């Protein structure tokens, strides 16, 4: 029987990490948007009795969905590891990779664990006082949307690494897209202040537009990580040419670096 090629492929661990990344983000989307329906977020202006109703309407979904995240949430580490690997592959100092790794590892706690915990605690005993449920509700959504500082700095670190990189691991436009993503973190900050309107945690600006930017950004880096793995030569110099010819066709020869 033929030995499957994948077993000897030196890139197999990279592919494993990449598929795990895709798996994680898919799980995340399904759990938050479909099973638990915590995204789009609940309304910040709900009074305690409305919050009780919100929890009641999602009781089973919250418990099942977030149980899945508690079990499988560790997959988020693969995404982080792959991105850190990509920064290590760049010509810049390893300090960039390590800072990014530390920041985003820490960010997982407010990034999604707080909301999972608070919501599960809230759903677990529906007979809790409404005021307490509202407290959990606020903690969940504020921590999810409002703790953007780590992501802001993390995006800037990745951006700087990409722009300084001489190994062409990522195209420069993705470096600039990191800036766009970082700026969305700034835009979300007012959600701590407003209970309603475009800048509340469910607002047109602080949530809807931000989520679109974040989704495009995530899609872009998942695609680019795949491109990096395809091009990887396990060396320390420039990675062989970028696949995409989209923008190369409109740049005359002399402008190519």
């Amino acid at each position, binding site marked *: 029987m033929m030995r499957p090629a994948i077993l000897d492929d030196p890139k197999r661990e990279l592919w494993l990490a990449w598929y795990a990344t895709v798996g994680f983000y898919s799980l995340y989307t399904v759990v938050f948007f479909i099973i638990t329906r915590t995204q789009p977020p609940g309304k910040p202006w709900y009074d305690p009795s409305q919050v009780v109703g919100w929890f009641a309407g999602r009781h089973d979904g919250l418990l099942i969905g977030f149980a899945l995240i508690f079990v499988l949430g560790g997959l988020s580490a693969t995404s982080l590891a792959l991105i850190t690997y990509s920064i290590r592959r760049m010509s810049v100092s390893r300090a960039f990779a390590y800072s990014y790794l530390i920041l985003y590892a820490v960010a997982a706690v407010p990034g999604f664990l707080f909301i999972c915990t608070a919501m599960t605690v809230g759903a677990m005993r529906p007979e809790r006082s409404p005021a307490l449920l509202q407290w959990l509700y606020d903690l969940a959504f504020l921590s999810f949307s409002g703790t953007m500082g780590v992501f802001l700095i993390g995006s800037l670190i990745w951006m700087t690494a990409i722009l300084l990189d001489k190994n062409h691991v990522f195209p420069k436009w993705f470096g600039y897209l990191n800036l766009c993503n970082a*700026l969305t973190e700034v835009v979300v900050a*007012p959600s701590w202040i407003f209970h309603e309107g*475009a800048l509340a945690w469910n607002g047109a600006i602080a949530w809807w537009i931000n989520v679109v930017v974040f989704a495009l950004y995530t899609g872009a880096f998942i695609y680019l990580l795949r491109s990096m793995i395809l091009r990887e030569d396990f060396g320390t110099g420039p990675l062989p*040419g970028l696949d995409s010819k989209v923008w190369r*066709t*409109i740049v005359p020869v002399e402008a190519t670096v």
Partner: protein
Amino acid sequence: MTTTQEPLVVVREQGTRHIPGQPDMWVFVFFESLVFTAYFCVYLYSRTQHERAFLHGQSQLLAWLGVLDTVVLLTSSWTMARCVQHARAGRYAPARRDAFLTAGLGFVFLVLKIVEWVRLIHLGHTFTSSEFFQYYFFLTAIHCVHLLIGFVVLGVLVWKLSASQEIVETCATYWHTVDFFWVLIFALLYVVR
């Protein structure tokens, strides 16, 4: 690394058409323009739903101050464009002078903005005092964040001035974007009824 490809365009007498700066920065320009347009649409929609309140808030603004802000930033774009032309011709001293002028005008804009914010706050209009001012402070503040980033970008430009015309043009593209965002913000906050 370089591949011979047919340029997609006709060669003009004066020289080949070329994309100003890295094409990548243009990706940023297009993307961020869409994000800002989305913000503007949210603002405009809110405006139509709360006409009177927005008109009242807007009447507290000084249109001439907005015009002054715009002229300052347009002038900074002018000096930026001149800087790029000088750098392209190898005249690095005038280019450097124009780059510093651009930064100086950006700084003037920042000061004018702060003066305006302080004036409005003293009149009792803050980020949370009304829906109009929520949008006003949000749009002007996020624009100022872009402007502050612009100063960093200008620093990169001066650093790479004699080394890479592509980087000079890339940085200029970013600065002009900050300028045309303001052109739109000014029209929407100060003039639109």
